[in-house]
Protein backbone atom coordinates (compact mmCIF):
# COMPACT_ATOMS: atom_id res chain seq x y z
CA UNK A 1 0.00 0.00 0.00
CA UNK A 2 1.27 3.42 -0.87
CA UNK A 3 2.31 5.52 2.07
CA UNK A 4 1.42 8.95 0.74
CA UNK A 5 -2.38 8.53 0.84
CA UNK A 6 -2.16 7.17 4.37
CA UNK A 7 -0.18 10.16 5.52
CA UNK A 8 -2.65 12.46 3.83
CA UNK A 9 -5.41 10.79 5.75
CA UNK A 10 -3.67 10.78 9.13
CA UNK A 11 -2.55 14.39 9.03
CA UNK A 12 -5.86 15.54 7.49
CA UNK A 13 -4.02 17.21 4.62
CA UNK A 14 -7.09 17.65 2.47
CA UNK A 15 -9.05 19.26 5.27
CA UNK A 16 -6.21 21.67 5.99
CA UNK A 17 -5.97 22.53 2.30
CA UNK A 18 -9.63 23.43 2.32
CA UNK A 19 -9.19 25.53 5.43
CA UNK A 20 -6.34 27.51 3.91
CA UNK A 21 -8.40 28.13 0.79
CA UNK A 22 -11.36 29.55 2.68
CA UNK A 23 -9.00 31.52 4.90
CA UNK A 24 -7.55 33.28 1.88
CA UNK A 25 -11.02 34.20 0.69
CA UNK A 26 -11.45 36.39 3.78
CA UNK A 27 -9.36 39.09 2.16
CA UNK A 28 -11.72 42.08 1.79
CA UNK A 29 -10.45 42.50 -1.77
CA UNK A 30 -12.09 39.22 -2.73
CA UNK A 31 -15.58 40.39 -1.80
CA UNK A 32 -17.92 40.01 -4.72
CA UNK A 33 -21.06 41.57 -3.28
CA UNK A 34 -22.31 44.81 -4.79
CA UNK A 35 -24.37 46.93 -2.45
CA UNK A 36 -26.81 47.51 -5.23
CA UNK A 37 -28.73 50.74 -4.72
CA UNK A 38 -25.61 52.36 -3.30
CA UNK A 39 -23.16 50.94 -5.78
CA UNK A 40 -24.34 50.58 -9.35
CA UNK A 41 -22.72 47.79 -11.32
CA UNK A 42 -20.99 48.67 -14.58
CA UNK A 43 -22.53 46.78 -17.45
CA UNK A 44 -20.91 46.17 -20.81
CA UNK A 45 -20.74 49.08 -23.21
CA UNK A 46 -23.00 47.44 -25.78
CA UNK A 47 -25.57 46.21 -23.26
CA UNK A 48 -29.08 46.79 -24.59
CA UNK A 49 -31.48 48.12 -22.00
CA UNK A 50 -33.96 50.92 -21.58
CA UNK A 51 -34.79 52.61 -24.95
CA UNK A 52 -34.26 56.30 -25.50
CA UNK A 53 -35.39 58.63 -28.25
CA UNK A 54 -32.63 61.08 -29.04
CA UNK A 55 -33.05 64.81 -29.56
CA UNK A 56 -30.97 67.29 -31.45
CA UNK A 57 -28.96 68.89 -28.68
CA UNK A 58 -29.01 72.33 -30.36
CA UNK A 59 -32.65 72.69 -31.27
CA UNK A 60 -34.13 70.35 -28.72
CA UNK A 61 -36.26 68.75 -31.44
CA UNK A 62 -36.54 65.01 -31.89
CA UNK A 63 -34.24 63.31 -34.35
CA UNK A 64 -37.01 60.96 -35.38
CA UNK A 65 -38.30 61.58 -38.88
CA UNK A 66 -41.30 59.29 -38.44
CA UNK A 67 -40.15 56.95 -41.18
CA UNK A 68 -41.72 53.96 -39.40
CA UNK A 69 -38.72 51.73 -40.15
CA UNK A 70 -38.27 50.77 -36.53
CA UNK A 71 -41.89 49.75 -36.18
CA UNK A 72 -41.56 47.62 -39.30
CA UNK A 73 -38.30 46.07 -38.18
CA UNK A 74 -39.56 45.13 -34.77
CA UNK A 75 -40.40 41.41 -34.65
CA UNK A 76 -42.79 42.08 -31.78
CA UNK A 77 -44.61 44.95 -33.45
CA UNK A 78 -44.49 46.91 -30.26
CA UNK A 79 -43.50 50.31 -31.62
CA UNK A 80 -46.22 52.56 -32.97
CA UNK A 81 -45.34 55.65 -34.95
CA UNK A 82 -48.01 58.15 -35.90
CA UNK A 83 -47.30 61.16 -38.02
CA UNK A 84 -48.88 63.89 -40.05
CA UNK A 85 -47.58 65.92 -42.96
CA UNK A 86 -46.58 69.48 -42.23
CA UNK A 87 -48.48 71.56 -44.81
CA UNK A 88 -45.65 74.12 -45.11
CA UNK A 89 -42.48 72.04 -45.28
CA UNK A 90 -44.22 68.98 -46.70
CA UNK A 91 -42.37 66.86 -44.20
CA UNK A 92 -43.67 64.14 -41.96
CA UNK A 93 -43.87 65.25 -38.35
CA UNK A 94 -43.98 62.78 -35.46
CA UNK A 95 -47.21 63.10 -33.48
CA UNK A 96 -47.14 59.98 -31.34
CA UNK A 97 -44.48 57.42 -30.56
CA UNK A 98 -45.10 54.59 -28.13
CA UNK A 99 -42.79 51.80 -27.10
CA UNK A 100 -44.30 48.86 -25.21
CA UNK A 101 -41.41 47.77 -23.02
CA UNK A 102 -43.29 44.78 -21.61
CA UNK A 103 -43.02 42.92 -24.92
CA UNK A 104 -39.57 44.05 -25.95
CA UNK A 105 -36.85 41.40 -26.08
CA UNK A 106 -34.05 43.94 -26.52
CA UNK A 107 -32.94 42.44 -29.79
CA UNK A 108 -31.80 45.81 -31.03
CA UNK A 109 -33.28 45.50 -34.54
CA UNK A 110 -35.08 48.82 -34.11
CA UNK A 111 -31.91 50.76 -33.43
CA UNK A 112 -30.18 48.95 -36.27
CA UNK A 113 -32.84 49.98 -38.70
CA UNK A 114 -33.19 53.60 -37.67
CA UNK A 115 -31.88 55.85 -40.42
CA UNK A 116 -31.19 58.80 -38.12
CA UNK A 117 -30.02 56.94 -35.04
CA UNK A 118 -32.97 58.38 -33.18
CA UNK A 119 -33.98 55.30 -31.24
CA UNK A 120 -31.29 53.77 -29.10
CA UNK A 121 -31.14 51.06 -26.48
CA UNK A 122 -29.12 52.48 -23.59
CA UNK A 123 -27.13 50.45 -21.06
CA UNK A 124 -29.67 51.35 -18.37
CA UNK A 125 -30.86 48.09 -16.86
CA UNK A 126 -33.51 49.29 -14.42
CA UNK A 127 -36.59 48.73 -16.56
CA UNK A 128 -39.01 47.60 -13.85
CA UNK A 129 -42.24 49.56 -13.50
CA UNK A 130 -45.05 49.60 -11.01
CA UNK A 131 -47.78 48.67 -13.51
CA UNK A 132 -48.27 47.17 -16.96
CA UNK A 133 -49.45 50.52 -18.21
CA UNK A 134 -46.23 52.02 -16.96
CA UNK A 135 -44.33 49.74 -19.33
CA UNK A 136 -45.77 51.58 -22.33
CA UNK A 137 -43.40 54.47 -22.83
CA UNK A 138 -44.56 57.52 -24.74
CA UNK A 139 -42.39 60.01 -26.57
CA UNK A 140 -41.95 62.24 -23.56
CA UNK A 141 -40.73 59.46 -21.29
CA UNK A 142 -38.50 58.08 -24.00
CA UNK A 143 -36.86 61.44 -24.41
CA UNK A 144 -36.53 62.37 -20.78
CA UNK A 145 -35.32 59.02 -19.59
CA UNK A 146 -36.30 57.45 -16.31
CA UNK A 147 -36.97 59.53 -13.24
CA UNK A 148 -35.41 57.76 -10.28
CA UNK A 149 -33.94 58.29 -6.88
CA UNK A 150 -30.18 58.18 -6.60
CA UNK A 151 -28.74 56.66 -3.44
CA UNK A 152 -25.52 57.82 -1.88
CA UNK A 153 -23.29 55.77 0.31
Amino acid sequence: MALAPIFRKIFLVDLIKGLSLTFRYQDPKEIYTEQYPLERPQVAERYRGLPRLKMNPETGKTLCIACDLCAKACPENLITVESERDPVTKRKVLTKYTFDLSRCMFCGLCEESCSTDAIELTPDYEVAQYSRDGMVLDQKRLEEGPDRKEYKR
Partner: protein
Amino acid sequence: MLNQLTQYLQSTVTPGQAGSMLWATIYILVIFAGISLCVVFINWGERKALAHFQIRLGPMRVGPHGLLQPIADALKLLLKEDTIPANADKVVFWVAPFIVTTAAFVVYLVVPFGPQHAVTDMNIGILFMLGVSSLGVLGIITAGWASNSHYPLLGSLRSSAQMVSYEVAMGLAVISAILMTSFTPGSGSGTLSMIGIVEAQKAQGVWFLFKFFPLGLVAFVVFAIAMIAETNRAPFDLPEAESELVAGFHTEYSGFRWSLFMLGEYAAMIAVSSIAVTLWLGGWMRPFPNLLSGTNWDTIFSLVPGAFFLFLSAVTLYSTARMPKKLTFRIQTVGLGAFGLLLGAVGLVMLVPGVRERVQDIFWFMLKVAVFMYLYIWYRATWPRYRFDQLMRVGWKVLLPLSLGVLIVTGVVGLSPELMTWLKGVL
Protein backbone atom coordinates in the same frame (compact mmCIF):
# COMPACT_ATOMS: atom_id res chain seq x y z
CA MET B 1 -20.83 47.07 51.53
CA LEU B 2 -17.35 48.59 51.48
CA ASN B 3 -16.28 45.86 53.82
CA GLN B 4 -17.56 43.29 51.32
CA LEU B 5 -15.72 45.01 48.50
CA THR B 6 -12.34 45.09 50.22
CA GLN B 7 -12.85 41.52 51.32
CA TYR B 8 -13.51 40.57 47.71
CA LEU B 9 -10.52 42.47 46.42
CA GLN B 10 -8.21 40.84 48.92
CA SER B 11 -9.48 37.30 48.44
CA THR B 12 -7.37 34.98 46.35
CA VAL B 13 -10.02 32.30 45.91
CA THR B 14 -13.34 32.17 44.13
CA PRO B 15 -16.44 33.60 45.85
CA GLY B 16 -17.86 30.11 46.18
CA GLN B 17 -14.82 28.93 48.14
CA ALA B 18 -14.71 32.10 50.22
CA GLY B 19 -18.34 31.44 51.13
CA SER B 20 -19.47 34.86 49.97
CA MET B 21 -23.06 34.52 48.85
CA LEU B 22 -23.22 38.09 47.60
CA TRP B 23 -20.26 37.87 45.27
CA ALA B 24 -21.26 34.45 44.02
CA THR B 25 -24.66 35.87 43.04
CA ILE B 26 -23.04 38.84 41.35
CA TYR B 27 -20.72 36.51 39.47
CA ILE B 28 -23.64 34.36 38.33
CA LEU B 29 -25.52 37.40 37.08
CA VAL B 30 -22.49 38.86 35.35
CA ILE B 31 -21.62 35.57 33.70
CA PHE B 32 -25.20 34.99 32.56
CA ALA B 33 -25.50 38.47 31.12
CA GLY B 34 -22.02 38.37 29.64
CA ILE B 35 -22.45 35.00 27.98
CA SER B 36 -25.84 36.03 26.56
CA LEU B 37 -24.28 39.18 25.18
CA CYS B 38 -21.37 37.16 23.78
CA VAL B 39 -23.84 34.79 22.11
CA VAL B 40 -25.63 37.71 20.51
CA PHE B 41 -22.43 39.13 19.13
CA ILE B 42 -20.97 35.78 18.15
CA ASN B 43 -24.11 35.42 16.09
CA TRP B 44 -23.24 38.67 14.34
CA GLY B 45 -19.60 37.63 14.06
CA GLU B 46 -20.57 34.30 12.62
CA ARG B 47 -22.76 35.81 9.94
CA LYS B 48 -20.08 38.33 9.14
CA ALA B 49 -17.15 35.90 9.12
CA LEU B 50 -19.10 33.29 7.21
CA ALA B 51 -19.96 35.93 4.65
CA HIS B 52 -16.30 36.87 4.24
CA PHE B 53 -15.31 33.23 3.87
CA GLN B 54 -17.82 33.02 1.06
CA ILE B 55 -16.66 36.34 -0.44
CA ARG B 56 -19.87 38.09 0.56
CA LEU B 57 -20.35 41.12 2.75
CA GLY B 58 -22.83 39.86 5.32
CA PRO B 59 -25.08 42.20 7.28
CA MET B 60 -24.32 45.80 6.32
CA ARG B 61 -27.45 47.85 6.73
CA VAL B 62 -28.30 48.05 10.45
CA GLY B 63 -25.57 50.15 12.00
CA PRO B 64 -22.04 50.37 10.65
CA HIS B 65 -21.12 46.99 9.18
CA GLY B 66 -24.37 45.58 10.54
CA LEU B 67 -23.20 45.90 14.14
CA LEU B 68 -26.72 46.46 15.40
CA GLN B 69 -28.12 43.56 13.37
CA PRO B 70 -28.23 41.16 16.37
CA ILE B 71 -30.39 43.64 18.26
CA ALA B 72 -32.77 43.88 15.33
CA ASP B 73 -32.80 40.09 15.09
CA ALA B 74 -33.51 39.67 18.78
CA LEU B 75 -36.35 42.15 18.56
CA LYS B 76 -37.79 40.34 15.58
CA LEU B 77 -37.58 36.97 17.34
CA LEU B 78 -39.28 38.28 20.46
CA LEU B 79 -42.12 39.81 18.47
CA LYS B 80 -42.69 36.76 16.31
CA GLU B 81 -45.75 34.61 16.73
CA ASP B 82 -45.00 31.68 18.97
CA THR B 83 -46.72 28.66 17.51
CA ILE B 84 -47.21 25.24 19.06
CA PRO B 85 -48.20 22.46 16.65
CA ALA B 86 -51.76 21.19 17.19
CA ASN B 87 -50.86 17.65 18.17
CA ALA B 88 -47.71 18.48 20.06
CA ASP B 89 -47.19 17.46 23.65
CA LYS B 90 -47.59 20.96 25.01
CA VAL B 91 -45.83 20.67 28.35
CA VAL B 92 -42.81 18.81 27.01
CA PHE B 93 -42.68 21.11 24.02
CA TRP B 94 -42.62 24.05 26.40
CA VAL B 95 -39.98 22.60 28.71
CA ALA B 96 -37.49 21.34 26.08
CA PRO B 97 -35.82 24.64 25.17
CA PHE B 98 -35.43 25.46 28.84
CA ILE B 99 -33.63 22.18 29.45
CA VAL B 100 -31.20 22.93 26.64
CA THR B 101 -30.49 26.47 27.81
CA THR B 102 -30.26 25.58 31.49
CA ALA B 103 -27.86 22.72 30.81
CA ALA B 104 -25.70 25.04 28.74
CA PHE B 105 -25.62 27.77 31.37
CA VAL B 106 -25.24 25.74 34.57
CA VAL B 107 -21.88 24.59 33.25
CA TYR B 108 -20.52 28.11 33.74
CA LEU B 109 -20.61 27.65 37.52
CA VAL B 110 -17.18 26.05 37.41
CA VAL B 111 -15.57 27.65 34.37
CA PRO B 112 -12.39 29.28 35.66
CA PHE B 113 -11.99 32.68 34.06
CA GLY B 114 -9.15 33.32 36.47
CA PRO B 115 -7.84 32.03 39.78
CA GLN B 116 -10.43 34.14 41.59
CA HIS B 117 -12.87 34.51 38.73
CA ALA B 118 -15.19 31.55 38.85
CA VAL B 119 -18.44 31.20 40.70
CA THR B 120 -16.96 28.35 42.63
CA ASP B 121 -14.26 25.74 42.43
CA MET B 122 -15.64 22.24 42.78
CA ASN B 123 -13.27 19.41 43.50
CA ILE B 124 -15.11 17.46 40.78
CA GLY B 125 -15.32 20.45 38.44
CA ILE B 126 -14.57 18.77 35.12
CA LEU B 127 -16.85 15.86 35.93
CA PHE B 128 -19.62 18.29 36.75
CA MET B 129 -19.08 20.11 33.48
CA LEU B 130 -19.16 16.99 31.35
CA GLY B 131 -22.17 15.63 33.22
CA VAL B 132 -24.27 18.77 33.04
CA SER B 133 -23.40 19.58 29.46
CA SER B 134 -24.56 16.10 28.39
CA LEU B 135 -27.96 16.91 29.86
CA GLY B 136 -28.46 19.14 26.85
CA VAL B 137 -29.15 16.07 24.72
CA LEU B 138 -32.17 15.38 26.90
CA GLY B 139 -33.63 18.71 25.88
CA ILE B 140 -32.98 17.94 22.24
CA ILE B 141 -34.66 14.54 22.44
CA THR B 142 -37.69 15.96 24.23
CA ALA B 143 -37.91 18.76 21.69
CA GLY B 144 -37.89 16.28 18.81
CA TRP B 145 -40.38 13.99 20.52
CA ALA B 146 -42.80 16.68 21.63
CA SER B 147 -43.01 18.31 18.20
CA ASN B 148 -44.92 15.27 16.92
CA SER B 149 -43.44 15.60 13.46
CA HIS B 150 -41.12 13.44 11.37
CA TYR B 151 -38.16 15.69 10.84
CA PRO B 152 -37.70 16.84 14.43
CA LEU B 153 -37.94 13.26 15.63
CA LEU B 154 -35.35 12.04 13.13
CA GLY B 155 -33.13 15.00 13.97
CA SER B 156 -33.29 14.37 17.68
CA LEU B 157 -32.61 10.66 17.21
CA ARG B 158 -29.52 11.46 15.19
CA SER B 159 -28.49 14.00 17.73
CA SER B 160 -28.76 11.61 20.64
CA ALA B 161 -26.87 8.85 18.83
CA GLN B 162 -24.15 11.29 17.84
CA MET B 163 -23.78 12.92 21.23
CA VAL B 164 -23.73 9.65 23.11
CA SER B 165 -21.11 8.10 20.87
CA TYR B 166 -18.83 11.13 20.79
CA GLU B 167 -19.06 11.56 24.53
CA VAL B 168 -17.03 8.38 24.94
CA ALA B 169 -14.06 9.61 22.93
CA MET B 170 -14.39 13.04 24.51
CA GLY B 171 -14.35 11.59 28.00
CA LEU B 172 -11.27 9.48 27.29
CA ALA B 173 -9.43 12.48 25.88
CA VAL B 174 -10.36 14.46 28.98
CA ILE B 175 -9.12 11.66 31.21
CA SER B 176 -5.71 11.71 29.56
CA ALA B 177 -5.48 15.44 30.34
CA ILE B 178 -6.55 14.83 33.92
CA LEU B 179 -3.95 12.10 34.15
CA MET B 180 -1.31 14.64 33.22
CA THR B 181 -2.21 16.76 36.25
CA SER B 182 -1.00 13.94 38.49
CA PHE B 183 2.53 14.15 37.09
CA THR B 184 3.25 17.44 38.86
CA PRO B 185 6.64 16.99 40.54
CA GLY B 186 6.25 16.86 44.28
CA SER B 187 2.49 16.47 44.40
CA GLY B 188 1.84 12.98 43.12
CA SER B 189 -1.93 13.26 42.96
CA GLY B 190 -4.10 14.62 40.21
CA THR B 191 -7.12 16.84 40.45
CA LEU B 192 -10.54 17.16 38.85
CA SER B 193 -10.98 20.77 39.86
CA MET B 194 -10.97 23.16 36.94
CA ILE B 195 -8.77 25.64 38.76
CA GLY B 196 -6.55 22.82 39.98
CA ILE B 197 -5.99 21.67 36.40
CA VAL B 198 -4.73 25.08 35.37
CA GLU B 199 -2.61 25.34 38.50
CA ALA B 200 -1.08 21.98 37.59
CA GLN B 201 -0.14 23.31 34.16
CA LYS B 202 1.42 26.30 35.86
CA ALA B 203 3.36 24.10 38.28
CA GLN B 204 4.61 21.87 35.46
CA GLY B 205 5.47 24.90 33.39
CA VAL B 206 3.83 23.59 30.24
CA TRP B 207 0.42 23.71 28.60
CA PHE B 208 -0.93 20.17 28.41
CA LEU B 209 -1.16 20.68 24.65
CA PHE B 210 2.64 20.38 24.50
CA LYS B 211 3.09 17.89 27.31
CA PHE B 212 4.68 14.59 26.22
CA PHE B 213 4.61 15.87 22.65
CA PRO B 214 2.65 14.73 20.65
CA LEU B 215 0.46 12.92 23.19
CA GLY B 216 -1.18 16.07 24.52
CA LEU B 217 -1.70 17.31 20.99
CA VAL B 218 -3.41 14.11 19.89
CA ALA B 219 -5.71 14.12 22.91
CA PHE B 220 -6.50 17.74 22.20
CA VAL B 221 -7.30 17.01 18.55
CA VAL B 222 -9.60 14.16 19.58
CA PHE B 223 -11.34 16.48 22.00
CA ALA B 224 -11.54 19.26 19.44
CA ILE B 225 -13.25 16.94 16.94
CA ALA B 226 -15.55 15.44 19.56
CA MET B 227 -16.57 18.83 20.85
CA ILE B 228 -17.77 19.91 17.41
CA ALA B 229 -19.88 16.79 17.25
CA GLU B 230 -21.13 17.39 20.79
CA THR B 231 -22.38 20.85 19.97
CA ASN B 232 -23.95 19.72 16.67
CA ARG B 233 -21.92 22.09 14.56
CA ALA B 234 -20.72 21.71 10.99
CA PRO B 235 -19.29 19.40 9.70
CA PHE B 236 -21.14 17.21 12.21
CA ASP B 237 -24.42 19.11 12.15
CA LEU B 238 -26.48 16.14 11.03
CA PRO B 239 -29.25 16.74 13.58
CA GLU B 240 -30.05 19.96 11.80
CA ALA B 241 -29.07 18.98 8.28
CA GLU B 242 -31.10 21.44 6.26
CA SER B 243 -31.06 19.45 3.06
CA GLU B 244 -32.74 16.39 4.52
CA LEU B 245 -34.27 17.36 7.87
CA VAL B 246 -35.46 20.96 7.37
CA ALA B 247 -34.01 22.27 10.64
CA GLY B 248 -33.79 19.11 12.70
CA PHE B 249 -35.12 19.08 16.21
CA HIS B 250 -36.18 22.71 16.26
CA THR B 251 -38.17 22.65 13.02
CA GLU B 252 -41.45 23.28 14.83
CA TYR B 253 -40.11 25.95 17.11
CA SER B 254 -40.44 29.63 16.44
CA GLY B 255 -39.94 32.99 18.06
CA PHE B 256 -38.71 33.09 21.63
CA ARG B 257 -38.44 29.32 22.09
CA TRP B 258 -36.36 28.99 18.95
CA SER B 259 -34.07 31.73 20.16
CA LEU B 260 -33.64 29.81 23.42
CA PHE B 261 -32.35 26.86 21.38
CA MET B 262 -29.91 29.16 19.62
CA LEU B 263 -28.81 30.65 22.92
CA GLY B 264 -28.31 27.16 24.33
CA GLU B 265 -26.34 26.00 21.31
CA TYR B 266 -23.95 28.93 21.33
CA ALA B 267 -23.60 28.89 25.12
CA ALA B 268 -22.72 25.19 24.87
CA MET B 269 -20.14 26.01 22.21
CA ILE B 270 -18.50 28.53 24.52
CA ALA B 271 -18.70 26.05 27.38
CA VAL B 272 -16.96 23.17 25.61
CA SER B 273 -14.39 25.60 24.21
CA SER B 274 -13.64 26.71 27.74
CA ILE B 275 -13.18 23.07 28.76
CA ALA B 276 -10.66 22.70 25.95
CA VAL B 277 -8.92 25.93 26.95
CA THR B 278 -8.76 24.90 30.59
CA LEU B 279 -7.50 21.41 29.94
CA TRP B 280 -4.99 21.97 27.17
CA LEU B 281 -4.34 25.64 26.58
CA GLY B 282 -3.41 26.74 30.06
CA GLY B 283 -6.72 28.36 30.99
CA TRP B 284 -6.22 31.91 32.12
CA MET B 285 -2.42 31.89 31.79
CA ARG B 286 -0.91 34.42 29.43
CA PRO B 287 0.79 33.16 26.27
CA PHE B 288 4.52 32.35 26.29
CA PRO B 289 4.93 32.04 30.08
CA ASN B 290 8.30 30.31 29.62
CA LEU B 291 9.76 31.95 26.54
CA LEU B 292 9.06 35.52 27.62
CA SER B 293 9.26 35.21 31.37
CA GLY B 294 10.27 37.74 34.00
CA THR B 295 8.52 40.68 35.64
CA ASN B 296 9.09 42.98 32.67
CA TRP B 297 7.23 40.67 30.34
CA ASP B 298 4.57 40.19 33.01
CA THR B 299 3.94 43.92 33.06
CA ILE B 300 3.88 44.16 29.28
CA PHE B 301 1.41 41.32 28.94
CA SER B 302 -0.79 42.74 31.69
CA LEU B 303 -1.04 45.97 29.68
CA VAL B 304 -2.37 44.13 26.64
CA PRO B 305 -6.05 43.86 27.71
CA GLY B 306 -6.36 47.59 28.37
CA ALA B 307 -4.57 48.41 25.14
CA PHE B 308 -6.88 46.05 23.28
CA PHE B 309 -9.95 47.82 24.62
CA LEU B 310 -8.48 51.23 23.83
CA PHE B 311 -7.83 50.04 20.28
CA LEU B 312 -11.44 48.85 19.96
CA SER B 313 -12.61 52.19 21.28
CA ALA B 314 -10.45 54.04 18.75
CA VAL B 315 -11.88 51.95 15.91
CA THR B 316 -15.43 52.58 17.11
CA LEU B 317 -14.91 56.32 17.45
CA TYR B 318 -13.31 56.44 14.00
CA SER B 319 -16.31 54.73 12.45
CA THR B 320 -18.61 57.04 14.43
CA ALA B 321 -16.91 59.97 12.76
CA ARG B 322 -17.44 58.31 9.41
CA MET B 323 -21.18 57.70 9.89
CA PRO B 324 -23.41 59.41 7.32
CA LYS B 325 -24.32 62.89 8.54
CA LYS B 326 -28.04 62.46 8.05
CA LEU B 327 -30.83 63.04 10.50
CA THR B 328 -32.01 59.45 10.22
CA PHE B 329 -28.63 58.23 11.41
CA ARG B 330 -28.54 60.51 14.45
CA ILE B 331 -29.55 57.90 17.06
CA GLN B 332 -27.20 55.28 15.63
CA THR B 333 -24.31 57.73 15.57
CA VAL B 334 -24.84 58.88 19.14
CA GLY B 335 -25.24 55.30 20.34
CA LEU B 336 -22.09 54.19 18.57
CA GLY B 337 -20.12 57.13 19.95
CA ALA B 338 -21.32 56.33 23.48
CA PHE B 339 -20.33 52.70 22.96
CA GLY B 340 -16.87 53.78 21.83
CA LEU B 341 -16.44 56.00 24.88
CA LEU B 342 -17.59 53.15 27.11
CA LEU B 343 -15.00 50.84 25.56
CA GLY B 344 -12.36 53.51 26.09
CA ALA B 345 -13.34 53.90 29.74
CA VAL B 346 -13.16 50.13 30.25
CA GLY B 347 -9.74 50.11 28.58
CA LEU B 348 -8.47 52.89 30.86
CA VAL B 349 -9.76 51.13 33.97
CA MET B 350 -7.99 47.98 32.82
CA LEU B 351 -4.68 49.84 32.71
CA VAL B 352 -4.83 50.77 36.43
CA PRO B 353 -2.08 48.75 38.19
CA GLY B 354 -4.28 47.12 40.85
CA VAL B 355 -6.98 46.17 38.41
CA ARG B 356 -4.96 44.93 35.49
CA GLU B 357 -3.39 41.98 37.28
CA ARG B 358 -6.83 40.85 38.33
CA VAL B 359 -8.53 41.38 35.00
CA GLN B 360 -5.93 40.08 32.58
CA ASP B 361 -6.75 36.47 33.47
CA ILE B 362 -10.30 36.93 32.20
CA PHE B 363 -8.99 38.57 29.07
CA TRP B 364 -6.58 35.79 28.17
CA PHE B 365 -9.20 33.16 28.87
CA MET B 366 -11.79 34.87 26.71
CA LEU B 367 -9.23 35.43 23.96
CA LYS B 368 -8.46 31.72 23.81
CA VAL B 369 -12.16 30.90 23.77
CA ALA B 370 -12.66 33.45 21.01
CA VAL B 371 -10.08 31.62 18.90
CA PHE B 372 -12.16 28.48 19.28
CA MET B 373 -15.29 30.35 18.26
CA TYR B 374 -13.47 31.53 15.15
CA LEU B 375 -12.40 27.97 14.41
CA TYR B 376 -16.01 26.80 14.71
CA ILE B 377 -17.05 29.32 12.08
CA TRP B 378 -14.06 28.51 9.91
CA TYR B 379 -14.89 24.81 9.93
CA ARG B 380 -18.50 25.57 9.13
CA ALA B 381 -17.46 27.67 6.17
CA THR B 382 -15.10 25.05 4.81
CA TRP B 383 -16.12 21.48 5.28
CA PRO B 384 -19.11 19.64 3.88
CA ARG B 385 -21.31 17.65 6.21
CA TYR B 386 -20.42 14.04 6.99
CA ARG B 387 -22.78 11.23 6.16
CA PHE B 388 -24.27 9.55 9.20
CA ASP B 389 -22.36 6.28 8.84
CA GLN B 390 -19.13 8.20 8.26
CA LEU B 391 -19.84 10.18 11.39
CA MET B 392 -20.32 7.03 13.44
CA ARG B 393 -17.24 5.46 11.89
CA VAL B 394 -15.09 8.43 12.80
CA GLY B 395 -16.48 8.42 16.31
CA TRP B 396 -16.17 4.74 17.16
CA LYS B 397 -13.43 3.44 14.91
CA VAL B 398 -11.00 6.34 14.87
CA LEU B 399 -11.46 8.67 17.80
CA LEU B 400 -12.25 6.07 20.44
CA PRO B 401 -9.19 3.82 19.83
CA LEU B 402 -7.03 6.89 19.39
CA SER B 403 -8.05 8.45 22.68
CA LEU B 404 -7.80 5.12 24.49
CA GLY B 405 -4.30 4.61 23.08
CA VAL B 406 -3.25 8.11 24.04
CA LEU B 407 -4.56 7.55 27.55
CA ILE B 408 -2.54 4.36 27.99
CA VAL B 409 0.62 5.77 26.46
CA THR B 410 0.30 8.91 28.58
CA GLY B 411 0.11 6.78 31.69
CA VAL B 412 3.15 4.75 30.67
CA VAL B 413 5.22 7.78 29.72
CA GLY B 414 4.22 9.66 32.84
CA LEU B 415 5.19 6.79 35.07
CA SER B 416 8.36 5.93 33.18
CA PRO B 417 10.76 7.14 35.92
CA GLU B 418 9.02 4.91 38.45
CA LEU B 419 8.86 2.08 35.95
CA MET B 420 12.58 2.40 35.34
CA THR B 421 13.46 2.16 39.01
CA TRP B 422 11.06 -0.75 39.38
CA LEU B 423 12.62 -2.52 36.41
CA LYS B 424 16.11 -1.94 37.82
CA GLY B 425 14.98 -3.41 41.11
CA VAL B 426 13.59 -6.49 39.37
CA LEU B 427 16.58 -7.12 37.14
